[in-house]
């Protein structure tokens, strides 16, 4: 029975069912102010958008209590705008926020590049001589002669008979 009640999802239904249940079940009291929101997945907010009505709005609201066929198109739209801020298409509309985000990303990437360049010019010590091309080629030859990683790694990729990479 609990599943049936809970699947209904409606707090009013829940409270009604609890009337017939022993009094140790307590109501939860929410003292927050009703909020307005424009959300695609929760269609009906806790309060209408405009809750301070001008006299013109109030008379329109009175007219709304009568047959709706007598409302003009502009009046219907005005009534909608009293209750809601945005329409569904307006809510779903794409913004240009992505341009700001991408711009920010590229800016900081560029700044990082600047910092890295400055470091390599003004901070790093001179390169050790083991990074010279001649040393590196001698080192490579020595690694091959020593059969470094001969199974799958380094020397495995050198063809010793032909004297070239496989």
């Amino acid at each position, binding site marked *: 029975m609990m599943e049936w009640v809970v699947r209904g999802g409606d707090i009013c239904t829940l409270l009604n069912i609890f009337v017939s249940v022993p009094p140790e079940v307590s109501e939860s009291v929410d003292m927050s102010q009703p909020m307005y929101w424009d959300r695609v997945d*929760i269609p009906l907010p806790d309060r209408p958008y405009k809750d301070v009505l001008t006299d013109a709005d109030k008379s329109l609201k009175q007219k709304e209590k009568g047959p709706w066929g007598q409302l003009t198109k502009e009046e219907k739209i005005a009534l909608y705008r009293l209750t809601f801020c945005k329409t569904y298409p307006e809510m779903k509309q794409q913004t240009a926020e992505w341009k700001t985000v991408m711009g920010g990303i590229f800016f900081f990437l560029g700044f990082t590049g600047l910092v890295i360049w400055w470091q390599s010019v003004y901070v790093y010590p001179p390169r050790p001589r083991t990074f010279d091309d001649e040393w590196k080629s001698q*080192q490579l030859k020595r*690694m091959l002669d020593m*059969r470094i*990683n001969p*199974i*799958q790694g380094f020397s495995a990729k050198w063809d010793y008979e032909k004297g070239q990479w496989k």
Partner: protein
Amino acid sequence: MAHPSQLGFQDAASPVMEELLHFHDHALMIVFLISTLVLYIIVAMVTTKLTNKFILDSQEIEIIWTLLPAIILILIALPSLRILYLMDEINDPHLTIKAMGHRWYWSYEYTDYEDLGFDSYMIPTQDLAPGQFRLLETDHRMVVPVESPIRILISAEDVLHSWAVPSLGVKMDAVPGRLNQTAFIASRPGVFYGQCSEICGANHSFMPIVVEAVPLEHFENWSSLMLEDA
């Protein structure tokens, strides 16, 4: 040693390291599978237009995402424990070497038959011969016979160090006042490099380890020469 821009492990030079390589392949495959699944779920969650605000529980998926991780963990644990016990098997070493960590060099003692001991300092960059490896070469290498079980007893004379040679699958902390034992078999001849693996001061990065595995006659010649020099 590692070659430039290497990402994976060095080729194994001992049977234990081979086992560790295969275990790593197994565990990494599981990691990739889980990551792919999670990435797929994230993309699916982010790109869907469906919503359901009234989900409260679901026993079926809870069972799946409890059992499945338990099974995956068992699949990882079983090979892992197998290797752990394999490493601890009773072995019959042919040779016992003591490696002592100092600030900032290693010293090796071969005292099974004679009293052979020597220090192993890093060769500074300015003293390297052309083609030698910067920060890895030492003046004396720890020479061992190939395909022989070696017991190595590791300790330190001052602060913590750690004796590590990745291609042999060996790492053991050198603790002052404590004797740690580990063992390895070099399954192929060659030169295997490692570096001190416990912070020990200013030159912690400059006390490498070099193990040279050679056929037994060469080892005997080398140890005789070293004894003469000493």
